[in-house]
Structures are given as C-alpha cells and as structure tokens.
C-alpha cells in the first residue's frame, strides 16, 4: 500500500528563509498529529502538500502521486480546512459548500445533495440557508469542515480546527474529527499547537521544530511499550541523589529543579530510592507511577532536537 505522505528531502524556502529543511519520511497513520511551536513549519508543510508553495528541492508524494507532476490528481484527493477564516461573503452555507463540491468535480445535483448532508453532519443543518458572514466563530469553523468534507476526500488537512472555540464547541469539533477518523474512509492530518487535541484524535505524531522533523512516533505503540516511570519530587540536595541513583543503573531525568523521572531496572525496587534518600538526606515529598504523556514526548523532542 502506498504511504499516505512520502517526503524526500523536501525543502521549502521563502527568500533566504528556509521554512522546511530536508524533510524525509513516510507517514501512514489514519490520523497524524502535526505538532510544533509557532513557526516550526506546520502550516508551511500543509500548504506545500496542497501545492500552494513550490519546494526549492526534494519532492513529496501523497498516496504515491507526485506533488509537482500530478498536482490536480493530488488535490482531488484532499480536503482542506484552513486555520484562518475562509469563506465567500454573500453566500449561504449550502451554496458555499455546494460550490466547493462542484469545484472538486462533483456533478451539480450530487454536490447540492452532499452539501446538505455535510452541513447536517457538522451540525449546521438548521442554519444552512443563513449567509456565512452571520455565523459565529464556531459555526464558521464547522462550515469550513463541511466544505473540506463535501467531496469525500481520501486525505483531510485540518489546520488548527479548534482555534478560538469555547470548550463545548471544541468538544463538538473533536468529537466530529474522531467520528470522521473512525469512519475509516479518510486519513487525517491535524495540525495544532494544542497537545490535548492531538492526543484525543491522532494515532501518530509528527513533531516539527525550526522546519525540521524533531520526532515521529506512533502514540499507540508508545503506550503499548508501557514506558512506565516514577515521578519524584525531592527536597534537599537532589543533584547528588540523582548521581547516586544513576550509579546504581537507574535511568534518571531531571525535569526541573526538584522533579525527577526515573525508570527502575528490575533488580531495584522503590525501597532502594528511600534508602538513597536516607543516605543523602533528601526528602521524597511525592512519588507516583506515570506514563509518557504527549507533553513529555513533545518536551523531549524540543529538548533533544
């Protein structure tokens, strides 16, 4: 099976600025989260895959189709929900979504039928004849999702879909995205700076930093690997305590001044930690078993790249 997205030394430049630097990889997940701090290149990557920006070098393929040579074939498989407000004023939602469906190649009658369906699907059924400029922010977000879905794409790019939404609207949007993912007919690329959104919707995570791939992982596999660790909060000379623990073969990572993560080898138990604390006059004020959260993965990627 062809990978959903295949990047081969993909580089994108704006003048002297290298926005994406030699990205390489194959991504196959049903829902891939695109994470990174502001300016990491998330939106640039999406725009490049949509054909808005031409790569300075390298290439990209979507479902095996080359972005440069088969751009129209690629775009006919894609649905795109942009980050910013995007609509055509003076149009009702149903006309707008229908127009977008027709531009994607749907015959007029089917486009109209699917426009109604898509608007019902995103929960705008009752408001579908209202002009788009009268919509609230949450409704506009859902109208954008409807136009991205109307032609039944194979790949859906969602750029910050929960931007500016209040908690109930965000919850509704996340539910919709999960529902689309679970339908099994479409792959999703979800770009967000909200880790929770990605964690709730995606199976794989691609973390970008300064235009480069910082980390790529399968969240389910990470969870399956059962990377259980201990999180300790110490009071006292924690540096010597950590050094002593490392000397015993305990994998330690100091996350702040007093919070420490430890992965215990099988030959040691928690008792060893208390004995060390006694030896180095350190108080253990908090001790808990944890698993790597997406926040931990993200922080680690930011530190290490």
């Amino acid at each position, binding site marked *: 099976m062809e990978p959903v997205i295949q990047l081969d030394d993909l580089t994108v430049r*704006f*003048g*002297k*600025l290298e926005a994406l630097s030699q990205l390489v990889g194959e991504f196959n997940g049903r829902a891939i989260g695109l994470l990174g701090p502001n300016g990491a290149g998330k939106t640039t990557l999406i*725009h490049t895959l*949509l*054909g*808005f*920006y031409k790569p300075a070098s390298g290439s990209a393929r979507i479902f095996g189709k080359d972005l440069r040579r088969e751009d*129209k*074939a690629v*775009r*006919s498989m*894609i649905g*795109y929900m*942009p980050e*910013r*407000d*995007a*609509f*055509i*004023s*003076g149009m009702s939602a149903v*006309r707008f979504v229908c*127009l*977008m469906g*027709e*531009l*994607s*190649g*749907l*015959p007029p009658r*089917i486009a109209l*039928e*699917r426009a*109604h*369906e898509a608007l*019902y*699907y995103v929960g705008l*059924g009752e408001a579908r004849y209202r002009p788009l*400029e009268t919509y609230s922010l949450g409704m506009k977000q859902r109208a954008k999702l409807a*136009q991205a*879905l109307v*032609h*039944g*794409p*194979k790949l859906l790019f969602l750029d910050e879909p929960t931007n500016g939404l209040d908690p109930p609207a965000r919850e509704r949007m996340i539910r919709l995205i999960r*529902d*689309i993912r679970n*339908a099994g*007919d*479409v792959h999703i690329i979800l770009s967000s700076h909200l880790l929770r959104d990605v964690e709730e919707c995606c199976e794989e995570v691609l973390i970008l930093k300064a235009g480069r791939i910082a980390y790529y992982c399968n969240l389910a596999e990470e969870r399956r690997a059962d990377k259980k660790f201990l999180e300790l909060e110490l009071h006292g000379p924690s540096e010597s305590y950590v050094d002593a623990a490392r000397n015993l073969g305990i994998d330690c990572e100091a996350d702040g001044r007093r919070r420490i993560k430890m992965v215990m080898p099988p030959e040691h138990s928690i008792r060893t930690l208390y004995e060390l604390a006694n030896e180095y006059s350190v108080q253990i004020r908090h001790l808990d078993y944890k698993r790597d959260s997406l926040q931990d993965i993200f922080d680690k990627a930011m530190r290490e790249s």
Partner: protein
Amino acid sequence: MAVYERNYKRYDGALTPLATRFLILPRYIFKDVFTSRWLLIFYVLSFIFPLICAIFIYLTHNLEFMKALPNFEMPDFLRIDAGFFERFLRFQGMWVFALTIFIGPGLVSKDLANNGLSLYLSRPFSRWEYVLGKLSVIAILLSPMTWMSGWFLMLLHSGYEEGNWIADNLGVFFGFFVGAWLWIIALGFLALAASAWVKWRAVAGFAMLAAVLGGSFFGSVLINNLFSTDYGHLLNLIVLIGRLWEGLLGLGGGSTSLPLSSAWVTYVAFLGLCGLMLHRKIRAYEVVG
C-alpha cells in the same frame, strides 16, 4: 446517503471534466448579479441601441417612400458599412464599460477579503482557471451587448441587401468580432486586476474609472499638448481601442495619427501588466519573503 443519515462517506462516483470546470464560477456569480434590479434594468437598457439600429436597418430597406424621395441620398454617417459598425462598437463600448464598473470590482475582492482563495486553490482548480472563470463572467455578459448584437445587425442587413453582404464584407464581419473581443478582454483584465488589488468594491470600481479617465487626461491632454505628439493617446484606453477597431474594420486612422503597430504593442503590454498584477495577487496565501 440520505440527508439525515449522519455518517461520513467517501464519494466514488464520476467527476465532471477538468477542462470545463472554470464555467462553474459564472454560473454561481450570475445568480448573484441578477438579484440586483438596477443591474438588470441597466442590462436591458443596453440593448436599446442595437434595437434602434435594427429598426433603422429595417426602415432603410423597407420604406419605399424614402427611396422614392427625389434627390434622396443617405448621409454618410447613416450608411450601413464598416463605419456604421465602428460607431456601433463605440456606443456599445461605453455601455459595456459602465456595466463592467458595476460587476467587475466584486469578482475577486469578495474572495480575497475573506481568504476564500485558499479554498478554491486547494481543489483541482488552478489560479489561471480561477482567472478564466472570472473573465468568463465578463465575457458572457458583454458578448450579447457587443459582437452578438453586431452580428445580428449584419445578418439582418445582409438579408435585405442584394447579393451576400457578409461574404462581400468578411473583413468587417470578422474585424468587428475581434474588435469586440479586444474590448471585452481589456475590460475583463482591468476589472480583475483592480478587484484583486483593492479589497473594497466601491474603491475598486473607482480605480477602474481612474485608470481609464486618468490615462485619457494624462496621455491625450497632458503628454500630447506638452510634447506636441499623438503618442500620448497610447495611455488613453478608449482612443487606443478605437484605433484598433479602425484598423480591424479597414477604416484607416481617422481619429488619430497613432500608428496601428504601436496601438497593438501597447494593447498587448496593457494585458501583460494586468496579467502580472493578477499573477501577484491570485494566490492562496501571500508570502512575505
């Protein structure tokens, strides 16, 4: 999938052909355009002059008393020949310019104002198809007012004339067609360029008017008088297109001594400039490099 069956489903049916997809845009735009009653009235009024011309052609061939009048000779300006159709183009040309000022400014600015271009261009729909779709709005609206009406008059006249008038005047027949299209394309490019660079509809309309009237004043009044030349007319779109019409209809340089070749070069340069302006603005997102 029924309307109430709230499930996501892919579409695997047949798609419309890519080549004709740009015609979707005029279909949607016309629905909006003709909701304005004033515009509809204006459009209908624009056919009054062709109607008067048709009545005139009918009368000149059917009123026996006109032919029976002693010493009756048709004045030159009423004779139905290349000059008649050139005057027809000039008159209708002003109507279509006015109509384009109404319609043109909203064509692109509406999409730009709300970041709609990214939605068009994320589909199998290129920038040039977008421009072609918007241009076709102007072309479809203006064609009946210009070359279609003109050809109708020629066919009417040919029907009344002895022999085949069209066959004898093929240069006029096709020159008229090309001339009308030159004006339609020039106005279309100007309207789209103004609409792409100015987001506010009213200001874009004013910019179109300023480009034509400002060019007339600057070229035909200032440059021509200051430098005692005729080349200032090159900045006057109305004189420029008039010179091209004269050339196409084989009338010689009656209104100006402007060389025909310079008029053609300027016309192409004008389209190039508008094309460049569109190339800069019709993008999914602007990149500040």
